[in-house]
């Protein structure tokens, strides 16, 4: 009976905090009103020890023992203020969760800023439960905390709230605040599957005439190298002539153009089928091919580059999930 009650109480508490604080907007500064503080287990033990010391001091009317007790009481009170101060006024600059492949570990990246003149130590971040990451914030400085999130299956991991906390300096108190920011961690399907990547599928997205896969590419021109360009397309000869790093551009119609079609992959298991498509996307991107993706109800025109790759993998990740349906609605 105990556990259901505890989780019920925790849920009620979370709802109350959510109502009380409202949704957060970036950049947020942690104000007094939203910082909570309670003694830790060590703090409670310290309190019990303190009470014992007070009783002993009072019982014997021993001045020095009483003074020691009072000094420790002041110590605990100041420690409480210092613990609270450690989080007070910390700025929350950015929160992001870069997409990852399934069966891996994702991360929520929280960037904190200290606009005050005193450094802050051992700031911790947690989702629910125990702190997962810790960092020091120098005076007028920033730090990034990386919270690991397990990404078991493709889809979206929604993180409703996260907790910033600290028990610095003496571990007697723990102060914390809840940050309510909808963070979504996109989990791509795990790329796997043995089928060969179709180099050119039957359908072309443009009306160009059908060619053989070995047909000559249509030369368009040179452009400067950008991150993500395939080494295969770099004009190495020009580079060798002391020219800047240039990339040869070909018309899409002439490139190794292909469209990965969900309907044409004959794997009965949905997840395996998505994994196969994901693998093709990853491979095509790695070798610098142009590729497109056709999903029921969605067509992503052939292209390449990190953004394109993300679009394709996201479409695979969200296929058939709530998020995809919402997007269409």
């Amino acid at each position: 009976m105990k556990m259901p009650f505890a989780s019920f109480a925790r849920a009620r508490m979370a709802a109350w905090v959510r109502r009380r604080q409202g949704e957060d907007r970036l950049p947020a500064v942690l104000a007094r009103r939203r910082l909570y503080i309670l003694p830790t287990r060590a703090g409670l033990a310290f309190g019990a020890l303190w009470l014992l010391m007070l009783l002993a001091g009072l019982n014997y009317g021993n001045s020095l023992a009483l003074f020691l007790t009072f000094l420790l009481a002041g110590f605990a009170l100041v420690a409480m203020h210092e613990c609270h101060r450690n989080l007070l006024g910390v700025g929350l600059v950015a929160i992001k969760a870069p997409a990852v492949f399934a069966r891996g570990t994702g991360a929520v990246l929280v960037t904190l800023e200290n606009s005050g003149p005193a450094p802050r130590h051992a700031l911790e971040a947690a989702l629910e439960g125990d702190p997962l990451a810790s960092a020091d914030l120098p005076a007028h400085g920033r730090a990034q905390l990386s919270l690991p999130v397990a990404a078991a299956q493709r889809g979206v991991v929604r993180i409703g709230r996260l907790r910033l906390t600290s028990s610095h300096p003496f571990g007697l108190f723990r102060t914390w605040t809840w940050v309510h920011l909808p963070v979504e961690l996109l989990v791509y399907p795990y790329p796997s599957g043995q089928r060969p990547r179709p180099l050119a599928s039957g359908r072309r997205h443009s009306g160009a005439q059908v060619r053989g896969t070995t047909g000559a590419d249509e030369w368009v021109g040179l452009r400067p190298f950008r991150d993500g360009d395939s080494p295969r397309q770099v004009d190495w000869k020009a580079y060798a002539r002391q020219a800047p790093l240039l990339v040869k551009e070909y018309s899409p119609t002439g490139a190794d153009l292909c469209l990965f079609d969900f309907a044409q992959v004959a794997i009965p298991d949905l997840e395996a089928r998505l994994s196969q498509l994901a693998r093709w996307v990853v491979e095509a991107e790695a070798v610098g091919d142009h590729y497109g993706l056709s999903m029921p109800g969605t067509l992503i025109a052939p292209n390449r580059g990190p953004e394109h790759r993300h679009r394709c993998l996201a479409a695979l990740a969200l296929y058939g999930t709530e998020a995809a349906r919402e997007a269409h609605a």
Partner: protein
Amino acid sequence: MPEPRDDRSLLWVSAAFAGGLGLHIDRVPLWVGAAALLLLLWRLAAARAPVPLPGRLLRALLTLGVALAVLARFHTLNGLAAGTSLLILVSALKLLETHRQRDRLVVVGAGLFLLLAACLDRQSLGRVPLYMGETWLCCAALAVAATPGLPGVSALRLAGRTLLFALPLALLLFVFFPRLAGSFWALPRGEEALSGLSDTMSPGNIAKLTTSYDIAFRAKFPGALPAPEERYWRGPVLHDFDGATWRRGSWNWRPLPAPLDFTGRAYRYQVILEPTRHRFWFALDTPAQSPDPGVTLTPDHELLAARPVEEPTRYEAVSYTRSSAAAPLSDGERRENLLLPRGNPRSVGFARELRARSGTDPAFVGAVLAFLRTGGFVYSLEPERLGVDQIDDFLFGTRTGFCGHYASAFVVLMRAAGVPARVVTGYLGGERNSIGGYLVVRQSDAHAWAEVWLEGKGWSRIDPTAVVEPERLRRGLPDLLPDSMSAPTRLLRASPWLRGLMERWDVASAWWDSRVVKFDYSIQLDVLERLGVHDADAGKLGWAFVLALLGWLTVIAWHIGRSARPRRPDPLARAYLRLCGKLARTGFARAPHQGPLAYSSALRAARPSLGEGAHALLARYAQLRYGATSAATHARDIEQLARAVRRLRVAHG
């Protein structure tokens, strides 16, 4: 649970514990300290090298073992000495299993508790720095244990700063916290007496005391000090002699002190007695009344308290140095003070013969004193060993002795001749502290003398030692027998500068003992009176406390919060923020990404009706912030802008 990688936290926790141990190292049995240190080294070695730590079974056995050992040594686990020893050993064992953070915190807690026990044990001023240091160490250990990787210097600075902030509150609480009278329960102290006079005397044991330079008590006389030869401080009066040792005997059947007629001047003075763990209080010979309801004035005019003196004790006493008996000696008392054990035939014969020749009791006393003066007796701290008939050996053999020997032999001679006599122990002398103006009586001033009953005069003090060594009356033992002092003490007394320093220190110590250690309700009211709160009662005490507490909390919260607040924007930024705030009233607020000029043009498009003044101010801000400015007029320009912003009127959109 895995071992924490960081063994520095273990080092700090061990240091906090070792500090607590250090406070008790001279009070616990040697083997307790040695065992604790050994366990500590074991743990530290295991953190560095592949030394195995004991398993669960061995630890359980060890715990049981130390409990039994303490029990065997003290016959109890209750009591300060036994409890402290047990705490030391058990926490040292706990240190062996400090794998988790929680275990380490337990050891720091033990360090704090050892500190408390040390406070209960000794409260002298000289130990205060030690206690403060240990508090600091424990708090720093707490910081290192809580934040692994925190550098030691930072931990010390952090703990020191926190304790400094806490100090005002500690002082406030100390002054205002209500004190209880009496106690809930009594914890037995160690059964071992501190150095000082006891209620038995063998002729040799006072000599042991006299090597101690510790203070027995201080006495402050508002008026004139008694003359040096009158500074006899009365302690236990001993009647029973078994041939080797004098004892008090149980003479409680007399309900009242023998009435005395006091003559001469009355000395009123204050005594601050150091803890002795005996029940005797000391007063100038002869105290006229009991200074405290808990103290009885015994028939022998001793001051006997109901409880042992565990803490510095302050009392006001009244004494007269001259008195005579108002009533004759009862038969019972006469019998009791004439009893002699068997033996010492030569002394008994000698006394009887001398008494017969003298004729009267006073003449007999004079004859015995003359015998001591002229018989070649030597005053010495290291008398030769005496045989079975101690008095015979001493009087007719060695003739070397200390005050105990002379008092003892004198009383035996008196009793053998039928003169009632008894031994009185106490202190003789006292050194005047030139700064505090009080007398300091040390353990080295311990003394024993005799009292004989003379018809018509009553109990009369006779000090046979003063006959053998007349200087003893005027000078302390260290001057007479320099060898009795330890080398540092001799050095101290030789240098006037050091002596002055020691006098100052003693004044501070005396103040500490009487005002801080003995801080109670009456001193509480006294402090309030000085702070300007008159007719203080418990209610006012409470209010004063609450006000002071709130004041402290406010100051602390403000001071600590200050470092968390971001810097206040500069005047130019403040003027700009104010301008943007006013312009937001148009319903078209500046977006975070817009600079002043971009905002200006966006505003021009969205709110064409807005006057040119606002645009001019935005442009002026951009000019002052980013454009070329002259350093000379910059401050004035900003001020002008701020004034213009204040004057700007913006209609609500």
